[in-house]
């Protein structure tokens, strides 16, 4: 296709064939995006349609009665739950946003010794194993937790000075476990930000604060919107954290109750409304984001970032990021502590009184220990590869192509994320327990492939979101330049689009991979003995009250994830594809 042309020959124009006239039609784009919709049809619409249909069905007929039951003012539990879920989610978005963006800023904007290490460690809370992870907050901040008890002893108080309870508890847990969405997307956006914009603002007299408020934050909008959507929806679907801190009136709890009571119609209605709220939030965010342009518009490539930085600022950044990372790592450290302490011995003391290596001995002498770890990695990698292909393609389509139905595409991608994991898993079980076209005539249930599929569906938005926010930032004329130089679409994608969006793609990939390694809610409903993932293994050890061993297992998981993070950082040279 790209053979060198004799210089004086006419341009290499093939006579038009039917194929050519097809590819040149303005509607050809629909052919290109069709595979995306097909995948969504197979793995989102088809499995989830049942839920929505069920919510509208009553005794075989079509009825809105479930909805009127939901909104009836007699029993306000549902409405209260909805309200609680929404406001917890909004608050979570805010707290996660503050922590995530602040950490991204400290670690991206200042160069100081140890920065590289910290920027790996800051991602580690993402690796918090789901079941023991939440417990570690109790051990830290609960009324018998290390910090309240420590303070009590230190200050000789009768009672612990504070304990983590209620909404605050939920917010703390959400913040600690979800800020990484903000951190990841924001740090890749900060890397890609045109430094000359800050210079321009400074030159016009804006101080640091104003620059942040008026230039940097607005320019991070795509990244912040992406993370907000992820955090909002996952908070809406959050189950354990509210439960632990006694906020039981949440949507997820209502769904759980309806399901235990066998009231499946109501559960479907509640699930539908949960996703409707999430989708409304999505539409709101899309509208907000769509009002402005975030593409770097500068002529040429801006010179390297402003070097004028005060020593004091640098040192403050160093101290702050060190403290920040330490605080964020505390829950992890507690798990490590528990993994080394004897079960049942730690009662009224501030710290565990006796330590042991037994839990690790158990693990390392048990030949089956590594099976779940290998399983989790296998499943997660398989799912992440799928997410990568799909997410990048979808992000490219939404940001760069012109077609109708973008919002629909976006909604469909987000849908599985907006629903509680149980609902997703149950839908998949229902859809794939019998052979059908979308499962290539296989029974997926009970096979290895149902788990990667579930992870794929559940983590659909991760790579998609972070990639599209990075793409939104990069100047599309660079792509045009490549095309102009004769590069085919695929070549352009490989040599230009991909490297320039790499930081966002990588952020999403890591999120998806790590989420996959920790996934529990869907796994427990889909695993088989041959495909037991780490999280289920940990659950079973907890279920057998081998708490210390469960923690040791958690530590193993964390170590593996740190290795993944470290290796990925090495492979991409730290600041992968900083486009500017």
């Amino acid at each position, binding site marked *: 296709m790209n053979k060198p042309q004799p210089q004086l020959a006419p*341009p290499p124009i093939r006579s038009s064939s039917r194929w050519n006239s097809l590819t*040149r039609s303005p509607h050809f784009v629909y052919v290109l995006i069709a595979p995306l919709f097909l995948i969504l049809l197979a793995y989102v619409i088809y499995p989830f349609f049942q839920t929505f249909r069920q919510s509208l069905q009553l005794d075989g007929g079509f009825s809105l009665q479930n909805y009127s039951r939901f909104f009836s003012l007699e029993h306000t539990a549902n409405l209260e739950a909805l309200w609680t879920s929404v406001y917890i989610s909004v608050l979570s978005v805010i707290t996660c946003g503050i922590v995530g963006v602040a950490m991204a800023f400290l670690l991206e904007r200042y160069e100081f010794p140890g920065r590289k290490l910290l920027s790996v460690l800051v991602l580690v809370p993402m690796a918090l194993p789901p079941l023991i992870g939440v417990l570690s907050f109790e051990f830290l901040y609960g009324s018998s937790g290390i910090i309240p008890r420590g303070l009590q002893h230190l200050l000789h108080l009768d009672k612990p000075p504070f304990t983590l309870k209620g909404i605050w508890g939920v917010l703390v847990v959400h913040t600690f476990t979800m800020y990484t969405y903000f951190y990841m997307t924001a740090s890749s956006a900060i890397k890609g930000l045109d430094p000359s914009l800050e210079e321009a603002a400074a030159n016009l007299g804006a101080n640091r604060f104003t620059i942040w408020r008026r230039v940097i934050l607005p320019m991070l909008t795509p990244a912040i919107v992406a993370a907000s959507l992820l955090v909002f929806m996952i908070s809406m679907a959050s189950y354990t954290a509210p439960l632990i801190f006694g906020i039981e009136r949440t949507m997820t709890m209502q769904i759980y109750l309806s399901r235990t009571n066998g009231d499946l119609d109501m559960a479907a209605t509640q699930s539908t409304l949960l996703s409707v709220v999430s989708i409304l939030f999505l539409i709101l965010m899309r509208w907000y984001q769509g009002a402005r342009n975030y593409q770097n518009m500068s002529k040429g490539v801006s010179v390297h970032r402003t070097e004028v930085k005060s020593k004091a600022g640098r040192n403050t950044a160093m101290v702050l990021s060190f403290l920040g990372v330490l605080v964020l790592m505390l829950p992890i450290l507690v798990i490590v502590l528990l993994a080394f302490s004897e079960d049942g011995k730690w009662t009224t003391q501030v710290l565990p009184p006796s330590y042991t290596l037994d839990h690790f001995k158990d693990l390392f002498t048990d030949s089956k220990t590594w099976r779940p770890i290998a399983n989790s990695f296998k499943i997660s990698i398989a799912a992440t590869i799928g997410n990568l292909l799909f997410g990048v393609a979808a992000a490219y389509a939404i940001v760069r192509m012109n077609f109708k139905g973008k919002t629909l595409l976006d909604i469909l991608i987000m849908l599985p994320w907006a629903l509680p994991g149980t609902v997703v898993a149950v839908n998949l079980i229902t859809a794939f327990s019998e052979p059908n076209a979308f499962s290539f005539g296989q029974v997926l249930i009970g096979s290895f492939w149902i788990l990667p599929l579930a992870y794929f569906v559940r983590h659909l938005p991760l790579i998609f979101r972070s990639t599209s926010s990075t793409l939104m930032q990069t100047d599309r004329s*660079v792509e*045009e330049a490549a*095309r*102009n130089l*004769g*590069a085919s679409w695929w070549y352009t994608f490989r040599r230009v689009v991909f490297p320039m969006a790499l930081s966002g793609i990588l952020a999403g990939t890591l999120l998806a991979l790590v989420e996959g390694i920790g996934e529990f809610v869907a796994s427990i409903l889909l695993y088989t003995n041959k495909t037991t993932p780490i999280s289920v293994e940990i659950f079973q050890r907890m279920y057998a009250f081998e708490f210390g061993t469960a923690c040791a297992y958690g530590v193993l998981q964390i170590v593996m994830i740190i290795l993944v993070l470290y290796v990925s950082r090495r492979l991409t040279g730290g600041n992968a594809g900083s486009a*500017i």
Partner: protein
Amino acid sequence: MIGVTLDRVSKTFGGAKGVEEVDVHINPGEFFTFLGPSGCGKTTTLRMIAGFYYPSDGRILFGEHNVTNMPPNKRNTGMVFQNYALFPHMTVFENIAFGLQVRKQGKAEINEKVTRAQKLVHLDGYGQRRIDQLSGGQQQRVALARALVIEPNILLLDEPLSNLDAKLREETRQEIKRLQLELGITTIYVTHDQSEAMSMSDRIMVMKDGVVQQIGTPHEIYNRPVNRFVASFIGESNLWEGTVERLEGGMVDVRLAPDLRLTGLAKNASPECKLAVGQKVTLSVRPEAVREAAASERGEANTMAVKVLLSEFTGISVNYMAQAGPLSVKAMFVGQGHRMRERDEEVLFTVAPDSIYFLE
């Protein structure tokens, strides 16, 4: 060699109009320039030729072939973008080599061609620099080298020299011209520099607000503009309004003010201008056509006494803004022979009849 035809091409952006009914045939191997004020639609037109915008209306042909919907990478055009559009994640070398790599040329060949291109834009030794370590002008030169090195059929240059100094611009201009002649590349050039356009182009298209005003050789455009806009846009021009008083023997007398009458040649009239006694016409006189008259010439035909309002030395010339009764007169004197006048001095100016041009 291949020609480019824009067949009544229009482009609108939502409501806003970009360009309207551009209809032009660019000959194979021609050096064709788009000229017009900022925002008149030059880039838009160029981008349609490159294939980044679909025309809202009309067709684009390369030779006989309709390329209106052909994807950009099939067009074999080389473009210098107004904003450069360099690949920020590649070095200078990689940027320039990109198009050659796409064409699957051999490593040695690429190396050699890129090195040559780097030399051409005076960037030898910068191959391994990152793009963000270059000055603005250096970036522009990378963009230029990147487009030239692939030796395309059609070269689209969107203000490719705007950030270069005169010396370098001159050299690069000659280089572009040489390549164009040697390889028979059809070149479409966007510039805001009229003199550049004049000296390089085979033909020029003057646009305004998305509408084509005139297409012609530099001589035609300069000496026979079709309307006031072209006259004033291409170089400086004095535009004076007056009434035809006499029309005789190919000579036209026009009264500009009660005590000021100029005589010109009837053949120097734009096609749209009908000369007739009593008719209002516009006279266009280039500042450099205004000469200083000796004191002895006072009162002679086409001579006027003016008062200097502003004088300015530009190096090669002295420019005046002056007042002759109700008329404001721009004049330009080149060379050493002229004593520079100060504000409020009185001078005698004269205009040769054959340097007066009549517009509607």
